[in-house]
């Protein structure tokens, strides 16, 4: 009996190709939209958290001036090297402190030149910023102390100045001095803010101070906090210590700012999550619209189907046989639509993830959820009008207008 009923259901699908197609289409669009949106959102969240992780976790950056743009920044005195020593010595939760200065310059190697930013810092900079070497070495303590003209370059600098050649051992010209490339940093890619992290050159702090800035100022202190210590606590300790060192009275505001990378990261990930939810909501609406489409098609065909059910009952079909047929019909259509929808969604989100340069993460939960929802809509609106019709007296079903 089940085979004959399956045959009847498949025949009914074939007989109404347009209706079957529209039903499937509604499910496909709904399922594909939800899955694609959520998958891309997941990918974007992953991309952002990866980038944040590459910045170095538990990282605090201390800069002179207030965060408020245009106020206090100019008047705020820079740090000196002993500020870094004081932080290192007096706050126990700190792992490393890297004092840094920055200078925008044009660097030249052979016939190539490139406008970039040079960072002067200590060896701790690499550990604080979570940098890895792709080749060569970091500068050593004696080079640091002597202010030697050596540098470690980012992957973008290698590409722009050296192309496919090995940069380690090569030379770059920075203004009036030339500098030996001793190391190449492993690529990190874009930062969460969209800047190229690999577009960087790192030299010993003293080298930059002597040859480029001409003073002993330190523009920023990068503070890496021990894993087990709360960054908030260290941040407060830094603020207190710096206030003392900069001799600020009770009534004065900080003339420096402590940025917490993780806070920025959390804000950004939070934003992306909200975006994903928003996209998911939009997609859920399209699933709903798809569902309403299915509902319309099913309800419009109810008259024809009711008469069809009347005919089937009149020639001796049992109520449960008619119901089984309609159930099979709607399950087949919904499941087929759902599977096509998942296929379309996986293809679309893999393609879009590639274009948007975010990782493609297959999310089984949302696939299952969208599939079940679509299937439920298909079955409910396909099956329940049929159930009502199959329960009528055959003659009433036959006469249905």
């Amino acid at each position, binding site marked *: 009996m089940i085979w*004959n009923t399956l045959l009847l259901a498949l025949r009914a699908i074939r*007989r109404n190709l347009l209706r079957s197609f529209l039903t499937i289409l509604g499910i496909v669009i709904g399922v594909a939209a939800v899955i694609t949106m959520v998958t891309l959102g997941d990918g974007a969240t992953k991309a952002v958290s990866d980038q944040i992780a590459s910045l170095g976790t538990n990282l605090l950056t201390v800069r002179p001036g207030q965060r408020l743009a245009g106020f206090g920044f100019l008047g705020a005195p820079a740090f000196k090297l002993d500020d870094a020593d004081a932080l290192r010595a007096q706050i126990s939760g700190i792992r490393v402190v890297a004092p840094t200065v920055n200078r925008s310059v044009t660097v030249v190697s052979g016939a190539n030149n490139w406008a970039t930013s040079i960072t002067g810092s200590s060896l701790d900079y690499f550990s604080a910023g979570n940098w890895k070497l792709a080749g060569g070495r970091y500068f050593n303590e004696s080079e640091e102390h002597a202010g030697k003209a050596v540098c470690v370059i980012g992957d973008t600098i290698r590409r722009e100045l050296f192309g496919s050649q090995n940069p380690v051992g090569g030379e770059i010209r920075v203004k009036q001095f030339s500098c030996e490339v001793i190391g190449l940093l492993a690529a990190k890619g874009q930062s969460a803010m969209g800047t190229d992290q690999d577009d960087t050159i790192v030299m010993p702090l003293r080298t930059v101070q002597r040859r480029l800035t001409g003073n002993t100022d330190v523009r920023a202190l990068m503070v890496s906090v021990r894993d087990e210590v709360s960054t908030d606590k260290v941040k407060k300790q830094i603020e207190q210590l710096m206030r003392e060192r900069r001799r600020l009275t009770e009534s004065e505001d900080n003339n420096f700012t402590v940025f917490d990378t993780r806070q920025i990261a959390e804000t950004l990930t939070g934003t992306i999550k909200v975006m994903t939810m928003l996209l998911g909501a939009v997609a859920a609406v399209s699933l709903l619209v798809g569902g309403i489409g299915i509902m319309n098609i099913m309800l419009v065909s109810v008259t024809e189907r009711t008469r069809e059910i009347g005919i089937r009952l*009149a*020639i001796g079909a*049992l*109520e449960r*046989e008619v119901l089984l047929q309609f159930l099979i019909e709607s399950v087949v259509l919904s499941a087929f639509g759902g599977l096509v929808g998942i296929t379309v969604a996986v293809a679309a989100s893999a393609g879009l993830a590639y274009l948007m340069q975010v990782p493609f993460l297959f999310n089984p939960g949302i696939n299952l959820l969208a599939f079940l929802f679509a299937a439920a809509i298909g079955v409910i609106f396909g099956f329940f009008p049929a159930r009502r019709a199959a329960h009528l007296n*055959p003659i009433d079903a036959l006469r249905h207008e």
Partner: protein
Amino acid sequence: MNESAQPEPLIRLAAITKSYGQGAAAFQALRGVDLEIAAGEFVAIMGPSGSGKSTVMNILGCLDTPTAGSYRYDGVQVEKLSRNQRALLRRNYLGFVFQGFNLLARTTALENVELPLLYRGEPAAARHAASREALRAVGLKGWEHHTPGELSGGQQQRVAIARAIVTHPTVLLADEPTGNLDTRTSHEIMELITRLNRDRGITVLMVTHEHDIAACAQRTVHFKDGRVERDTANAGSAR
């Protein structure tokens, strides 16, 4: 069952009533119908619109249930049967032909005819053979793969008759089978029905409002106001 001198008729309606609606608005379609039909009979049911002839037909065919009264089919008390048992009665013993044909749209003649056999769970080969044979019997050999939309009204009614007889029913119930057909086609369909009654011994109950169509039957039952008004044998019947 057959204690009386007369054998039990195939169908016996006793005091059948049918009303629609409730209370003051209730409409009495049947007001106590008594009717006996013997196996192998060809009975025409006539009457003006609203006389209850179609209602009695639907009750006889188990498509509808009476409000009160007794319906015995071949010794079985039909009003005591469940929905499913009535469906099985239709499936195994009754065949229907409707005024509006009631074929499945966009479905070939062959598939329409084999539908009742599908519900009877017959294997594919037997189904196909029986359906082709039924179509041949109604003169539609070669039209098996045409859908109702590609067939004339007369041909569609022939497909419907083939569907009704493919299960070898005991009773064929025809509700104005020629109502949608022109005179010439009507006579062809009536010839076919008469032949089925004569050659296969199928009991035929036919509702019509045309006297020349009713004249094909052996007996005519006239309805009026929900009751049997007259029950006459047709002297000049085709038999």
